[in-house]
């Protein structure tokens, strides 16, 4: 009896453990193929948006949806804000992240809009440090092609991209400089920066 119980417990424990491992797996499953699949989806979406013939305002809304779905906007926002994020209240961080998402969609949406008539193709993917880098090439009309690299991580619990390197220029580093300068202009007032970001980009 006792031994039976122990055996059951043991079995339950083993299966339970396996179940936990099984549940945890999706979060650990990011590999080169998954990172590449994510960027494939992003690139297909960008190609669709820029060749949809939609108006600028419509495209910005679509880019915002794209960032919300495929990018780790909270971590990008926090990294862009830098040290100032440390003293921000949770409510301020939420407001900042939201305003930043709109700013990011308008700013990079504008750049992607210049790709109209062109297309982006994923070429390669490999692990880099603690994340994955996925390479793509943008071929635009009347311009030599250039490379667009995406950094993908699952540390948020989902596979999301958290940086783009556009022809060698790192978005995260650029936005840290940009947001830092804006905050300086607002004399370090985060609420004023949030208000400003709602229309910037």
């Amino acid at each position, binding site marked *: 009896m006792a031994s039976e119980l122990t055996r059951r417990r043991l079995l339950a424990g083993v299966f339970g453990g396996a179940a936990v491992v099984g549940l945890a797996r999706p979060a650990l499953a990011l590999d080169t193929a998954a990172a590449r699949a994510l960027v494939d989806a992003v690139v297909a979406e960008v190609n669709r948006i820029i060749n949809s013939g939609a108006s600028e305002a419509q495209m910005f809304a679509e880019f915002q949806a794209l960032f919300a779905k495929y990018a780790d906007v909270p971590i990008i926002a926090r990294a862009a804000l*830098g040290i100032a994020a440390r003293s921000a209240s949770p409510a301020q961080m939420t407001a900042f992240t939201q305003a930043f998402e709109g700013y990011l969609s308008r700013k990079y949406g504008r750049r992607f809009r*210049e790709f109209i008539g062109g297309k982006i193709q994923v070429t390669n993917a490999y692990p880099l440090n*603690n994340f994955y880098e996925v390479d793509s090439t943008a071929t635009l009309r009347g311009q030599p092609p250039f490379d667009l690299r995406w*950094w993908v991580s699952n540390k948020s619990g989902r596979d999301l991209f958290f940086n783009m390197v556009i022809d060698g*220029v*790192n978005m995260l*580093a650029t936005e840290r*400089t940009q947001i830092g*300068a804006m905050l300086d202009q607002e004399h370090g007032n985060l609420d004023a920066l949030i208000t400003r970001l709602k229309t910037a980009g």
Partner: protein
Amino acid sequence: MPGPRRSGMLWAALVAVTVGACAPKTGPGLINDPYEAQNRENHAFNVAFDSHVLQPVSQAYGKSVPGPLRRGVSNFSQNLDLPSYALNDILQARFASAGQNVLRFAFNTVFGIGGIFDPAGALGLPPAENDFGRTLYVWGAPEGAYLEVPFLGPSTQRDLAGTVVDIVTDPVNYIFPKRMHNYPTAAHLAARVGDRYKYNSLINSILHAPGSYQQERLIYLEKRHHDLGMPEQAPTFDPYEDPYGK
């Protein structure tokens, strides 16, 4: 035939390279900008020049000159860059690129009516851009300090030296008949105005935004290192490990 003015410029370039070699070294992720105060003054000048002259002139040019004509001017100017690219290709022993640039130059000059059209591009023969700043890099010259130059914009000691040498040694000056020497200069200036028009939104978003000095410096250096194929620096910080990026 290099006159006294030309050799003077060459000396200035060489001095710049030598000074560059003596400039303080920096650690990874740090920007070597010991002349920041002067650079910022030049930046303020460049931004004002852009607001009051280049941007308005480019808008007038873009709106009054039809697209095909602007493209023709741009093609003509770019075609004249090719001999200089080829010269630098040879200096860097990149003979395939040299061949590509020479072939493109010959083809577009003949079939593109002096380079106004770009039939070579349509046939899949793009330019392989090159400059003496890159030659200096290939030869092992250090980058030196970051510089922002009036009218010219962002550069480094090595790149500025390269620009000066490229101007002095431009083969076009030796190919072109003397009485027509103003044509290439005029074409380059018009092409630059055309580029300012073409990339208006992008340039405004960098040049006329807060922190434009640091922004332009960062973008120039990152893009330049990328174009030179310099070994990639490890990401300066991982936002998941260190979200505030000390």
